[in-house]
Protein backbone atom coordinates (compact mmCIF):
# COMPACT_ATOMS: atom_id res chain seq x y z
CA UNK A 1 0.00 0.00 0.00
CA UNK A 2 2.77 2.38 0.90
CA UNK A 3 4.60 1.46 -2.25
CA UNK A 4 1.51 2.06 -4.29
CA UNK A 5 1.15 5.49 -2.80
CA UNK A 6 4.58 6.54 -3.95
CA UNK A 7 3.82 5.48 -7.46
CA UNK A 8 0.45 7.14 -7.67
CA UNK A 9 1.75 10.55 -6.72
CA UNK A 10 5.27 10.62 -8.09
CA UNK A 11 7.59 13.19 -6.68
CA UNK A 12 5.23 14.66 -4.17
CA UNK A 13 4.57 11.97 -1.56
CA UNK A 14 6.79 13.85 0.87
CA UNK A 15 4.53 16.85 0.58
CA UNK A 16 1.14 15.14 0.46
CA UNK A 17 1.41 12.26 2.89
CA UNK A 18 3.32 13.13 6.05
CA UNK A 19 6.36 10.87 5.76
CA UNK A 20 6.23 8.49 8.63
CA UNK A 21 9.17 6.43 7.58
CA UNK A 22 12.59 7.71 6.73
CA UNK A 23 12.72 5.51 3.65
CA UNK A 24 9.85 7.35 2.06
CA UNK A 25 11.60 10.66 2.35
CA UNK A 26 14.80 9.16 1.13
CA UNK A 27 13.11 7.78 -1.96
CA UNK A 28 11.65 11.18 -2.71
CA UNK A 29 15.00 12.82 -2.28
CA UNK A 30 16.71 10.22 -4.40
CA UNK A 31 14.12 10.64 -7.10
CA UNK A 32 14.63 14.37 -7.33
CA UNK A 33 18.40 13.93 -7.33
CA UNK A 34 18.02 11.50 -10.19
CA UNK A 35 15.72 13.91 -12.03
CA UNK A 36 18.25 16.67 -11.55
CA UNK A 37 21.03 14.50 -12.91
CA UNK A 38 18.93 13.58 -15.93
CA UNK A 39 18.26 17.21 -16.75
CA UNK A 40 21.84 18.28 -16.01
CA UNK A 41 23.12 17.98 -19.61
CA UNK A 42 20.18 20.11 -20.76
CA UNK A 43 20.85 22.70 -18.05
CA UNK A 44 24.56 22.83 -18.89
CA UNK A 45 23.72 23.29 -22.56
CA UNK A 46 21.22 26.07 -21.94
CA UNK A 47 23.32 27.89 -19.37
CA UNK A 48 26.68 27.42 -21.07
CA UNK A 49 25.80 27.89 -24.71
CA UNK A 50 22.68 30.07 -24.66
CA UNK A 51 22.42 32.09 -21.45
CA UNK A 52 26.13 32.76 -21.00
CA UNK A 53 26.69 33.84 -24.64
CA UNK A 54 23.70 36.14 -24.32
CA UNK A 55 25.13 37.98 -21.31
CA UNK A 56 28.53 37.90 -22.93
CA UNK A 57 26.95 39.62 -25.96
CA UNK A 58 25.63 42.35 -23.66
CA UNK A 59 29.13 42.82 -22.28
CA UNK A 60 30.78 42.75 -25.71
CA UNK A 61 28.38 45.31 -27.10
CA UNK A 62 29.62 47.83 -24.55
CA UNK A 63 33.27 47.67 -25.57
CA UNK A 64 35.13 49.76 -28.11
CA UNK A 65 36.21 48.32 -31.43
CA UNK A 66 39.57 47.04 -30.21
CA UNK A 67 37.87 45.66 -27.10
CA UNK A 68 40.21 47.55 -24.80
CA UNK A 69 37.84 49.85 -22.96
CA UNK A 70 34.28 49.99 -21.73
CA UNK A 71 32.18 52.58 -23.54
CA UNK A 72 28.68 51.94 -22.16
CA UNK A 73 25.89 52.33 -24.67
CA UNK A 74 27.92 54.28 -27.21
CA UNK A 75 27.73 51.49 -29.78
CA UNK A 76 23.95 51.52 -29.68
CA UNK A 77 23.84 55.32 -29.88
CA UNK A 78 26.27 55.24 -32.79
CA UNK A 79 24.17 52.68 -34.63
CA UNK A 80 20.91 54.53 -34.13
CA UNK A 81 22.41 57.74 -35.47
CA UNK A 82 23.80 56.01 -38.52
CA UNK A 83 21.59 56.24 -41.60
CA UNK A 84 22.65 52.82 -42.87
CA UNK A 85 21.47 51.21 -39.68
CA UNK A 86 18.17 53.08 -39.69
CA UNK A 87 17.65 51.63 -43.15
CA UNK A 88 18.50 48.18 -41.78
CA UNK A 89 15.81 48.52 -39.12
CA UNK A 90 13.24 49.54 -41.73
CA UNK A 91 14.27 46.81 -44.12
CA UNK A 92 14.07 44.20 -41.33
CA UNK A 93 10.53 45.32 -40.52
CA UNK A 94 9.44 45.38 -44.16
CA UNK A 95 11.06 42.02 -44.81
CA UNK A 96 9.60 40.27 -41.78
CA UNK A 97 6.11 41.78 -41.84
CA UNK A 98 5.75 41.54 -45.62
CA UNK A 99 6.97 37.96 -45.76
CA UNK A 100 4.92 36.77 -42.78
CA UNK A 101 1.68 38.29 -44.11
CA UNK A 102 2.22 36.65 -47.49
CA UNK A 103 3.21 33.32 -45.93
CA UNK A 104 0.19 33.34 -43.62
CA UNK A 105 -2.20 34.14 -46.49
CA UNK A 106 -0.77 31.57 -48.89
CA UNK A 107 -0.54 29.00 -46.11
CA UNK A 108 -4.15 29.60 -45.17
CA UNK A 109 -5.38 29.35 -48.75
CA UNK A 110 -3.41 26.17 -49.40
CA UNK A 111 -4.48 24.52 -46.15
CA UNK A 112 -8.08 25.31 -46.92
CA UNK A 113 -7.82 24.07 -50.48
CA UNK A 114 -6.09 20.85 -49.37
CA UNK A 115 -8.75 20.33 -46.73
CA UNK A 116 -11.51 20.29 -49.35
CA UNK A 117 -9.77 17.55 -51.35
CA UNK A 118 -10.63 13.90 -50.83
CA UNK A 119 -8.20 12.25 -48.40
CA UNK A 120 -6.55 10.12 -51.06
CA UNK A 121 -5.32 12.90 -53.30
CA UNK A 122 -4.54 15.15 -50.36
CA UNK A 123 -1.33 13.44 -49.36
CA UNK A 124 0.15 13.58 -52.84
CA UNK A 125 -0.52 17.29 -53.21
CA UNK A 126 0.67 18.00 -49.70
CA UNK A 127 3.93 16.21 -50.42
CA UNK A 128 4.58 18.31 -53.49
CA UNK A 129 3.69 21.53 -51.70
CA UNK A 130 6.10 20.77 -48.87
CA UNK A 131 9.17 20.48 -51.09
CA UNK A 132 10.34 24.13 -50.62
CA UNK A 133 10.26 23.70 -46.88
CA UNK A 134 12.18 20.41 -46.94
CA UNK A 135 15.17 21.65 -48.94
CA UNK A 136 17.63 23.54 -46.68
CA UNK A 137 17.19 27.26 -47.46
CA UNK A 138 20.93 27.74 -47.90
CA UNK A 139 20.70 25.19 -50.73
CA UNK A 140 17.46 26.25 -52.37
CA UNK A 141 18.43 29.91 -52.33
CA UNK A 142 21.26 28.95 -54.68
CA UNK A 143 18.61 27.89 -57.18
CA UNK A 144 16.84 31.23 -56.79
CA UNK A 145 20.11 33.06 -57.13
CA UNK A 146 20.63 31.34 -60.45
CA UNK A 147 17.03 32.09 -61.51
CA UNK A 148 17.71 35.77 -60.76
CA UNK A 149 21.11 35.84 -62.49
CA UNK A 150 21.66 39.22 -64.20
CA UNK A 151 22.57 37.81 -67.63
CA UNK A 152 21.15 34.26 -67.64
CA UNK A 153 17.97 34.74 -65.59
CA UNK A 154 15.56 32.01 -66.63
CA UNK A 155 12.66 34.11 -65.33
CA UNK A 156 13.68 37.01 -67.55
CA UNK A 157 13.93 34.59 -70.47
CA UNK A 158 10.28 33.68 -69.88
CA UNK A 159 9.30 37.32 -69.52
CA UNK A 160 11.02 38.17 -72.77
CA UNK A 161 9.30 35.40 -74.68
CA UNK A 162 5.95 36.93 -73.69
CA UNK A 163 7.25 40.39 -74.56
CA UNK A 164 7.76 41.84 -71.08
CA UNK A 165 11.02 43.73 -70.53
CA UNK A 166 13.48 41.93 -68.29
CA UNK A 167 13.86 42.83 -64.63
CA UNK A 168 17.06 43.48 -62.66
CA UNK A 169 15.92 41.16 -59.87
CA UNK A 170 18.89 41.65 -57.59
CA UNK A 171 20.35 44.80 -59.11
CA UNK A 172 17.57 47.28 -58.47
CA UNK A 173 17.03 48.09 -54.75
CA UNK A 174 13.25 47.72 -54.82
CA UNK A 175 13.27 44.58 -56.93
CA UNK A 176 15.96 43.16 -54.67
CA UNK A 177 13.76 43.85 -51.63
CA UNK A 178 10.92 42.11 -53.42
CA UNK A 179 13.11 39.16 -54.40
CA UNK A 180 14.35 38.39 -50.89
CA UNK A 181 10.78 38.50 -49.61
CA UNK A 182 9.62 36.28 -52.48
CA UNK A 183 12.21 33.63 -51.69
CA UNK A 184 11.36 33.76 -48.00
CA UNK A 185 7.67 33.33 -48.79
CA UNK A 186 8.48 30.44 -51.12
CA UNK A 187 10.43 28.75 -48.36
CA UNK A 188 8.10 29.49 -45.44
CA UNK A 189 4.55 29.22 -46.81
CA UNK A 190 4.45 25.38 -46.60
CA UNK A 191 5.13 25.55 -42.85
CA UNK A 192 2.04 27.72 -42.38
CA UNK A 193 0.15 25.31 -44.60
CA UNK A 194 0.82 22.25 -42.45
CA UNK A 195 0.16 24.10 -39.20
CA UNK A 196 -3.17 25.39 -40.51
CA UNK A 197 -4.04 22.05 -42.04
CA UNK A 198 -3.54 20.35 -38.67
CA UNK A 199 -5.68 23.03 -37.03
CA UNK A 200 -8.41 22.67 -39.67
CA UNK A 201 -8.52 18.93 -39.08
CA UNK A 202 -9.01 19.50 -35.37
CA UNK A 203 -12.20 21.53 -35.92
CA UNK A 204 -15.11 19.16 -35.18
CA UNK A 205 -17.32 18.44 -38.20
CA UNK A 206 -20.44 18.95 -36.11
CA UNK A 207 -19.73 22.66 -35.98
CA UNK A 208 -19.84 22.86 -39.77
CA UNK A 209 -22.93 20.67 -39.88
CA UNK A 210 -24.65 22.93 -37.36
CA UNK A 211 -23.65 25.96 -39.40
CA UNK A 212 -24.91 24.27 -42.58
CA UNK A 213 -28.25 23.57 -40.94
CA UNK A 214 -28.41 27.23 -40.00
CA UNK A 215 -27.86 27.92 -43.71
CA UNK A 216 -24.43 29.45 -43.40
CA UNK A 217 -22.63 30.27 -46.65
CA UNK A 218 -19.07 29.16 -47.22
CA UNK A 219 -17.76 32.55 -46.21
CA UNK A 220 -19.84 32.58 -43.05
CA UNK A 221 -18.54 29.16 -42.08
CA UNK A 222 -15.02 30.46 -42.55
CA UNK A 223 -15.70 33.65 -40.65
CA UNK A 224 -17.72 32.28 -37.75
CA UNK A 225 -16.53 28.69 -37.36
CA UNK A 226 -13.07 28.21 -38.84
CA UNK A 227 -11.47 31.48 -37.75
CA UNK A 228 -12.53 31.39 -34.09
CA UNK A 229 -11.46 27.75 -33.81
CA UNK A 230 -8.07 28.43 -35.39
CA UNK A 231 -7.37 31.81 -33.83
CA UNK A 232 -4.86 30.50 -31.34
CA UNK A 233 -2.90 28.43 -33.85
CA UNK A 234 -2.84 31.32 -36.30
CA UNK A 235 -1.50 33.60 -33.57
CA UNK A 236 1.18 31.15 -32.45
CA UNK A 237 2.33 30.41 -36.00
CA UNK A 238 2.43 34.08 -37.02
CA UNK A 239 4.35 35.17 -33.92
CA UNK A 240 6.77 32.29 -34.23
CA UNK A 241 7.34 33.03 -37.88
CA UNK A 242 7.85 36.74 -37.13
CA UNK A 243 10.68 35.85 -34.76
CA UNK A 244 12.30 33.50 -37.24
CA UNK A 245 11.90 35.87 -40.18
CA UNK A 246 13.25 38.87 -38.27
CA UNK A 247 16.28 36.76 -37.44
CA UNK A 248 16.71 35.42 -40.98
CA UNK A 249 20.19 35.15 -42.39
CA UNK A 250 20.58 32.49 -45.11
CA UNK A 251 18.37 33.91 -47.82
CA UNK A 252 19.57 37.52 -47.78
CA UNK A 253 23.19 36.53 -47.29
CA UNK A 254 23.23 34.28 -50.36
CA UNK A 255 20.89 36.19 -52.63
CA UNK A 256 22.10 39.78 -52.26
CA UNK A 257 24.59 39.84 -49.38
CA UNK A 258 22.80 43.02 -48.28
CA UNK A 259 23.18 44.81 -51.60
CA UNK A 260 22.57 46.72 -53.76
CA UNK A 261 23.84 49.68 -51.70
CA UNK A 262 22.86 47.97 -48.41
CA UNK A 263 19.19 48.08 -49.48
CA UNK A 264 18.39 44.51 -48.39
CA UNK A 265 20.45 44.22 -45.20
CA UNK A 266 18.54 42.88 -42.22
CA UNK A 267 19.80 42.55 -38.65
CA UNK A 268 21.43 39.15 -39.10
CA UNK A 269 23.30 39.89 -42.32
CA UNK A 270 24.33 43.35 -41.14
CA UNK A 271 25.63 41.98 -37.85
CA UNK A 272 27.63 39.42 -39.82
CA UNK A 273 29.11 42.06 -42.09
CA UNK A 274 29.98 44.43 -39.27
CA UNK A 275 31.05 41.88 -36.67
CA UNK A 276 32.72 39.05 -38.59
CA UNK A 277 33.73 40.52 -41.93
CA UNK A 278 34.80 43.98 -40.79
CA UNK A 279 36.08 42.61 -37.50
CA UNK A 280 34.20 45.03 -35.24
CA UNK A 281 32.95 42.40 -32.81
CA UNK A 282 31.40 44.81 -30.28
CA UNK A 283 29.44 46.72 -32.91
CA UNK A 284 28.29 43.46 -34.49
CA UNK A 285 27.12 42.21 -31.09
CA UNK A 286 25.20 45.46 -30.65
CA UNK A 287 23.50 45.00 -34.05
CA UNK A 288 22.36 41.46 -33.30
CA UNK A 289 21.11 42.47 -29.86
CA UNK A 290 18.49 44.59 -31.64
CA UNK A 291 16.77 41.29 -32.39
CA UNK A 292 16.31 40.69 -28.67
CA UNK A 293 13.45 43.13 -27.88
CA UNK A 294 11.46 41.71 -30.79
CA UNK A 295 12.16 38.20 -29.58
CA UNK A 296 11.26 39.05 -25.99
CA UNK A 297 7.91 40.66 -26.83
CA UNK A 298 6.79 38.02 -29.32
CA UNK A 299 7.92 35.05 -27.27
CA UNK A 300 5.85 36.21 -24.30
CA UNK A 301 2.79 36.09 -26.54
CA UNK A 302 3.77 32.76 -28.10
CA UNK A 303 4.25 31.23 -24.67
CA UNK A 304 0.92 32.58 -23.51
CA UNK A 305 -0.74 31.13 -26.59
CA UNK A 306 0.90 27.75 -26.11
CA UNK A 307 0.07 27.43 -22.42
CA UNK A 308 -3.51 28.53 -23.13
CA UNK A 309 -3.71 25.91 -25.84
CA UNK A 310 -2.32 23.25 -23.53
CA UNK A 311 -4.83 24.15 -20.85
CA UNK A 312 -7.71 24.11 -23.36
CA UNK A 313 -6.86 20.65 -24.64
CA UNK A 314 -6.02 19.31 -21.20
CA UNK A 315 -9.24 20.51 -19.60
Amino acid at each position, binding site marked *: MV*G*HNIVAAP*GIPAAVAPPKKGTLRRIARR*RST*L*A*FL*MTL*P*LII*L*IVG*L*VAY*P*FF*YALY*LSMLNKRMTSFIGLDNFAFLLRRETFQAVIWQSVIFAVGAVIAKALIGFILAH*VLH*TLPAKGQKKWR*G*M*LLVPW*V*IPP*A*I*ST*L*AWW*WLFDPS*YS*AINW*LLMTVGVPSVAWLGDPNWARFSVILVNV*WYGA*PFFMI*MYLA*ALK*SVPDQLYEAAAI*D*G*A*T*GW*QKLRFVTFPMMRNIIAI*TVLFSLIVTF*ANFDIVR*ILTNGGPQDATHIFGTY*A*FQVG*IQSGDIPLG*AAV*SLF*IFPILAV*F*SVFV*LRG*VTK*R*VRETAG
Partner: protein
Amino acid sequence: MNRTLVATGAATAPSRRKIGSIKQERRWALIGAYVALAVFVVFFLTPPFHMLVTSLKSSAEIADFGSNPWTVRSPTLENYRDLLTQGNYVLHFRNSMIVTLSVVVITMVISTLAAFALSRMRFWGSTALATGVFLTYLVPETLLFIPLFQIIGGAGLYNNLFAMILIYPTLTVPFCTWIMIGYFSSIPRELDEAALIDGANHFQMLWKIFIPVALPGILAAIIFAFTVSWAQFLYPMAFLVSSDQMVLTVGIVSDLIRADTFQWGKIMAGALMAAAPPLLVYAFLMDYYIAGLTAGATKS
Protein backbone atom coordinates in the same frame (compact mmCIF):
# COMPACT_ATOMS: atom_id res chain seq x y z
CA MET B 1 -23.70 36.19 -35.46
CA ASN B 2 -26.26 33.45 -34.95
CA ARG B 3 -29.02 35.70 -36.08
CA THR B 4 -27.51 36.33 -39.51
CA LEU B 5 -26.98 32.64 -40.03
CA VAL B 6 -30.55 31.84 -39.16
CA ALA B 7 -31.94 34.64 -41.29
CA THR B 8 -30.17 33.63 -44.49
CA GLY B 9 -31.00 30.02 -43.79
CA ALA B 10 -34.69 30.75 -43.50
CA ALA B 11 -34.69 32.67 -46.76
CA THR B 12 -33.16 29.97 -48.92
CA ALA B 13 -33.75 26.70 -47.16
CA PRO B 14 -37.17 25.76 -48.55
CA SER B 15 -36.30 25.98 -52.24
CA ARG B 16 -35.54 22.75 -54.06
CA ARG B 17 -33.04 24.27 -56.46
CA LYS B 18 -30.79 24.81 -53.49
CA ILE B 19 -29.68 21.17 -53.44
CA GLY B 20 -28.55 21.28 -57.04
CA SER B 21 -26.78 24.56 -56.49
CA ILE B 22 -24.95 23.15 -53.50
CA LYS B 23 -23.69 20.31 -55.63
CA GLN B 24 -22.68 22.70 -58.35
CA GLU B 25 -21.11 25.02 -55.83
CA ARG B 26 -19.09 22.15 -54.48
CA ARG B 27 -17.96 21.16 -57.94
CA TRP B 28 -16.82 24.69 -58.69
CA ALA B 29 -15.08 24.82 -55.33
CA LEU B 30 -13.23 21.63 -56.20
CA ILE B 31 -12.23 22.95 -59.63
CA GLY B 32 -11.07 26.18 -57.99
CA ALA B 33 -9.13 24.13 -55.47
CA TYR B 34 -7.27 22.22 -58.17
CA VAL B 35 -6.49 25.40 -60.10
CA ALA B 36 -5.07 27.05 -56.97
CA LEU B 37 -3.07 23.93 -56.15
CA ALA B 38 -1.67 23.70 -59.66
CA VAL B 39 -0.59 27.35 -59.58
CA PHE B 40 1.22 26.92 -56.28
CA VAL B 41 2.76 23.59 -57.17
CA VAL B 42 4.27 25.23 -60.26
CA PHE B 43 5.54 28.15 -58.16
CA PHE B 44 6.93 25.84 -55.47
CA LEU B 45 8.58 23.32 -57.78
CA THR B 46 10.06 25.72 -60.32
CA PRO B 47 13.40 26.29 -58.50
CA PRO B 48 14.12 22.59 -57.90
CA PHE B 49 13.12 21.82 -61.49
CA HIS B 50 15.40 24.49 -62.86
CA MET B 51 18.13 23.18 -60.57
CA LEU B 52 17.79 19.74 -62.11
CA VAL B 53 17.74 21.08 -65.68
CA THR B 54 20.85 23.19 -65.13
CA SER B 55 22.72 20.37 -63.42
CA LEU B 56 22.33 18.22 -66.53
CA LYS B 57 23.87 20.79 -68.87
CA SER B 58 27.44 21.29 -69.97
CA SER B 59 29.10 24.64 -69.25
CA ALA B 60 28.97 25.45 -72.95
CA GLU B 61 25.23 24.93 -73.12
CA ILE B 62 24.65 27.02 -69.97
CA ALA B 63 26.69 29.87 -71.41
CA ASP B 64 24.88 29.79 -74.75
CA PHE B 65 22.47 32.75 -74.80
CA GLY B 66 20.47 31.20 -77.64
CA SER B 67 19.44 28.09 -75.71
CA ASN B 68 16.27 27.68 -73.70
CA PRO B 69 17.14 27.77 -69.96
CA TRP B 70 14.20 25.50 -69.12
CA THR B 71 15.13 22.55 -71.30
CA VAL B 72 18.23 20.45 -71.89
CA ARG B 73 19.53 19.94 -75.41
CA SER B 74 22.18 17.34 -74.68
CA PRO B 75 21.89 16.01 -71.13
CA THR B 76 25.14 15.02 -69.45
CA LEU B 77 26.15 13.77 -66.03
CA GLU B 78 29.59 15.32 -66.16
CA ASN B 79 28.77 17.87 -63.43
CA TYR B 80 27.87 15.08 -61.05
CA ARG B 81 30.87 13.01 -62.09
CA ASP B 82 33.26 15.93 -61.59
CA LEU B 83 31.87 16.71 -58.16
CA LEU B 84 32.21 13.15 -57.00
CA THR B 85 35.67 12.55 -58.39
CA GLN B 86 37.53 15.83 -57.98
CA GLY B 87 37.51 18.73 -55.54
CA ASN B 88 36.23 18.72 -51.98
CA TYR B 89 32.55 17.98 -52.53
CA VAL B 90 32.74 14.43 -51.18
CA LEU B 91 34.67 15.71 -48.18
CA HIS B 92 32.00 18.33 -47.48
CA PHE B 93 29.33 15.70 -47.77
CA ARG B 94 31.19 13.52 -45.30
CA ASN B 95 31.66 16.46 -42.92
CA SER B 96 27.95 17.24 -43.07
CA MET B 97 27.17 13.60 -42.32
CA ILE B 98 29.60 13.47 -39.37
CA VAL B 99 28.23 16.66 -37.85
CA THR B 100 24.59 15.77 -38.44
CA LEU B 101 24.77 12.23 -37.12
CA SER B 102 26.75 13.28 -34.04
CA VAL B 103 24.33 16.09 -33.32
CA VAL B 104 21.34 13.78 -33.71
CA VAL B 105 22.83 11.30 -31.23
CA ILE B 106 23.82 13.99 -28.70
CA THR B 107 20.45 15.68 -29.04
CA MET B 108 18.49 12.50 -28.53
CA VAL B 109 20.46 11.50 -25.42
CA ILE B 110 20.15 14.92 -23.79
CA SER B 111 16.54 15.51 -24.66
CA THR B 112 15.21 12.02 -23.94
CA LEU B 113 16.69 12.06 -20.45
CA ALA B 114 15.51 15.61 -19.79
CA ALA B 115 12.03 15.00 -21.19
CA PHE B 116 11.66 11.88 -19.08
CA ALA B 117 12.62 13.73 -15.92
CA LEU B 118 10.49 16.75 -16.75
CA SER B 119 7.39 14.77 -17.65
CA ARG B 120 7.44 12.25 -14.81
CA MET B 121 9.46 13.49 -11.87
CA ARG B 122 8.28 16.79 -10.56
CA PHE B 123 11.14 18.47 -8.79
CA TRP B 124 12.06 21.90 -7.60
CA GLY B 125 12.13 24.26 -10.58
CA SER B 126 10.90 21.69 -13.10
CA THR B 127 8.08 23.85 -14.45
CA ALA B 128 10.41 26.82 -14.80
CA LEU B 129 12.89 24.62 -16.62
CA ALA B 130 10.23 23.37 -19.04
CA THR B 131 9.29 26.97 -19.81
CA GLY B 132 12.96 27.85 -20.15
CA VAL B 133 13.40 25.04 -22.67
CA PHE B 134 10.60 26.42 -24.78
CA LEU B 135 12.00 29.95 -24.63
CA THR B 136 15.44 28.69 -25.63
CA TYR B 137 13.84 27.14 -28.68
CA LEU B 138 12.70 30.61 -29.74
CA VAL B 139 16.20 32.12 -29.48
CA PRO B 140 17.48 32.50 -33.04
CA GLU B 141 21.09 31.77 -33.97
CA THR B 142 21.52 35.30 -35.35
CA LEU B 143 21.31 36.64 -31.80
CA LEU B 144 24.19 34.58 -30.45
CA PHE B 145 26.69 33.96 -33.22
CA ILE B 146 28.96 36.88 -32.36
CA PRO B 147 29.56 36.02 -28.69
CA LEU B 148 29.84 32.35 -29.74
CA PHE B 149 32.45 33.41 -32.28
CA GLN B 150 34.50 34.81 -29.40
CA ILE B 151 33.86 31.80 -27.17
CA ILE B 152 34.77 29.31 -29.90
CA GLY B 153 37.89 31.31 -30.68
CA GLY B 154 38.84 31.42 -27.01
CA ALA B 155 38.42 27.64 -26.74
CA GLY B 156 40.72 27.12 -29.70
CA LEU B 157 37.95 25.59 -31.79
CA TYR B 158 37.85 28.23 -34.54
CA ASN B 159 37.81 26.60 -37.97
CA ASN B 160 37.16 23.22 -36.42
CA LEU B 161 34.36 20.91 -37.43
CA PHE B 162 33.87 19.83 -33.82
CA ALA B 163 32.77 23.33 -32.85
CA MET B 164 29.66 22.64 -34.93
CA ILE B 165 28.96 19.43 -33.02
CA LEU B 166 29.27 21.43 -29.82
CA ILE B 167 27.03 24.33 -30.86
CA TYR B 168 24.29 22.78 -33.00
CA PRO B 169 22.59 21.07 -30.03
CA THR B 170 21.57 24.52 -28.78
CA LEU B 171 19.32 24.67 -31.84
CA THR B 172 18.00 21.12 -31.72
CA VAL B 173 17.75 20.08 -28.05
CA PRO B 174 15.12 22.58 -26.86
CA PHE B 175 12.48 21.69 -29.44
CA CYS B 176 13.21 17.95 -29.27
CA THR B 177 12.85 18.05 -25.49
CA TRP B 178 9.63 20.01 -25.87
CA ILE B 179 7.95 17.55 -28.23
CA MET B 180 9.11 14.59 -26.21
CA ILE B 181 7.73 16.05 -22.98
CA GLY B 182 4.42 16.10 -24.83
CA TYR B 183 4.68 12.50 -25.97
CA PHE B 184 5.93 11.20 -22.62
CA SER B 185 3.19 13.00 -20.71
CA SER B 186 0.58 11.24 -22.83
CA ILE B 187 1.80 7.81 -21.68
CA PRO B 188 -0.62 6.56 -19.01
CA ARG B 189 0.84 6.46 -15.53
CA GLU B 190 -0.48 2.94 -15.02
CA LEU B 191 2.40 1.73 -17.19
CA ASP B 192 4.96 3.29 -14.83
CA GLU B 193 3.25 1.73 -11.88
CA ALA B 194 3.25 -1.69 -13.48
CA ALA B 195 6.95 -1.34 -14.26
CA LEU B 196 7.81 -0.17 -10.77
CA ILE B 197 5.84 -3.00 -9.21
CA ASP B 198 7.78 -5.40 -11.40
CA GLY B 199 10.91 -3.94 -9.89
CA ALA B 200 12.13 -1.89 -12.81
CA ASN B 201 14.31 1.10 -12.06
CA HIS B 202 13.91 4.44 -13.79
CA PHE B 203 16.33 3.73 -16.60
CA GLN B 204 14.70 0.42 -17.40
CA MET B 205 11.36 2.18 -17.36
CA LEU B 206 12.64 4.76 -19.81
CA TRP B 207 14.31 2.22 -22.08
CA LYS B 208 11.69 -0.52 -22.02
CA ILE B 209 8.49 1.50 -21.85
CA PHE B 210 8.83 5.17 -22.64
CA ILE B 211 11.05 4.96 -25.69
CA PRO B 212 9.10 2.16 -27.43
CA VAL B 213 5.71 3.70 -26.65
CA ALA B 214 6.74 7.21 -27.66
CA LEU B 215 8.55 6.04 -30.79
CA PRO B 216 6.59 8.31 -33.16
CA GLY B 217 7.59 11.30 -31.06
CA ILE B 218 11.20 10.16 -30.96
CA LEU B 219 11.21 9.76 -34.73
CA ALA B 220 9.81 13.27 -35.11
CA ALA B 221 12.55 14.60 -32.83
CA ILE B 222 15.25 12.75 -34.78
CA ILE B 223 13.98 14.14 -38.07
CA PHE B 224 13.89 17.64 -36.60
CA ALA B 225 17.46 17.39 -35.29
CA PHE B 226 18.60 15.97 -38.62
CA THR B 227 16.92 18.73 -40.63
CA VAL B 228 18.24 21.54 -38.50
CA SER B 229 21.82 20.24 -38.43
CA TRP B 230 21.89 19.48 -42.13
CA ALA B 231 20.55 22.92 -43.03
CA GLN B 232 22.53 25.08 -40.60
CA PHE B 233 24.32 27.85 -42.47
CA LEU B 234 25.21 30.76 -40.20
CA TYR B 235 27.49 28.96 -37.76
CA PRO B 236 29.62 27.20 -40.39
CA MET B 237 29.69 30.46 -42.32
CA ALA B 238 31.05 32.32 -39.30
CA PHE B 239 33.29 29.68 -37.72
CA LEU B 240 34.71 27.63 -40.58
CA VAL B 241 37.17 29.09 -43.08
CA SER B 242 39.21 26.32 -44.65
CA SER B 243 37.62 24.07 -47.23
CA ASP B 244 38.60 20.81 -45.54
CA GLN B 245 36.55 21.70 -42.44
CA MET B 246 33.48 22.96 -44.28
CA VAL B 247 30.04 21.38 -44.42
CA LEU B 248 27.87 21.28 -47.54
CA THR B 249 25.84 24.43 -46.98
CA VAL B 250 28.93 26.63 -47.12
CA GLY B 251 31.24 24.33 -49.04
CA ILE B 252 29.31 24.33 -52.32
CA VAL B 253 29.52 28.08 -52.75
CA SER B 254 33.03 28.56 -51.43
CA ASP B 255 34.56 25.95 -53.71
CA LEU B 256 32.62 26.45 -56.89
CA ILE B 257 32.78 30.21 -57.06
CA ARG B 258 36.24 31.44 -57.82
CA ALA B 259 36.31 35.21 -58.22
CA ASP B 260 33.68 35.81 -60.89
CA THR B 261 33.49 32.39 -62.50
CA PHE B 262 30.31 30.70 -61.46
CA GLN B 263 30.20 27.04 -62.34
CA TRP B 264 26.45 26.98 -62.30
CA GLY B 265 26.10 23.45 -63.61
CA LYS B 266 28.20 22.08 -60.79
CA ILE B 267 26.65 24.37 -58.18
CA MET B 268 23.19 23.10 -59.10
CA ALA B 269 24.33 19.47 -59.19
CA GLY B 270 25.95 19.89 -55.77
CA ALA B 271 22.88 21.63 -54.39
CA LEU B 272 20.61 18.90 -55.65
CA MET B 273 22.71 16.15 -54.07
CA ALA B 274 22.87 18.15 -50.83
CA ALA B 275 19.08 18.42 -50.83
CA ALA B 276 18.67 14.70 -51.42
CA PRO B 277 19.12 13.36 -47.84
CA PRO B 278 16.43 15.56 -46.29
CA LEU B 279 14.15 14.94 -49.28
CA LEU B 280 14.56 11.18 -48.85
CA VAL B 281 13.97 11.33 -45.11
CA TYR B 282 10.81 13.33 -45.64
CA ALA B 283 9.58 11.15 -48.47
CA PHE B 284 9.46 8.18 -46.11
CA LEU B 285 8.82 9.72 -42.71
CA MET B 286 6.80 12.84 -43.46
CA ASP B 287 3.75 11.73 -41.52
CA TYR B 288 5.65 11.14 -38.28
CA TYR B 289 7.35 14.46 -38.56
CA ILE B 290 4.22 16.46 -39.26
CA ALA B 291 2.37 14.70 -36.44
CA GLY B 292 5.17 15.54 -34.00
CA LEU B 293 5.56 19.08 -35.21
CA THR B 294 1.92 20.02 -35.16
CA ALA B 295 1.32 18.20 -31.89
CA GLY B 296 3.76 20.64 -30.32
CA ALA B 297 1.46 23.49 -31.16
CA THR B 298 -1.99 21.99 -31.39
CA LYS B 299 -2.05 19.48 -28.59
CA SER B 300 1.25 19.20 -26.77
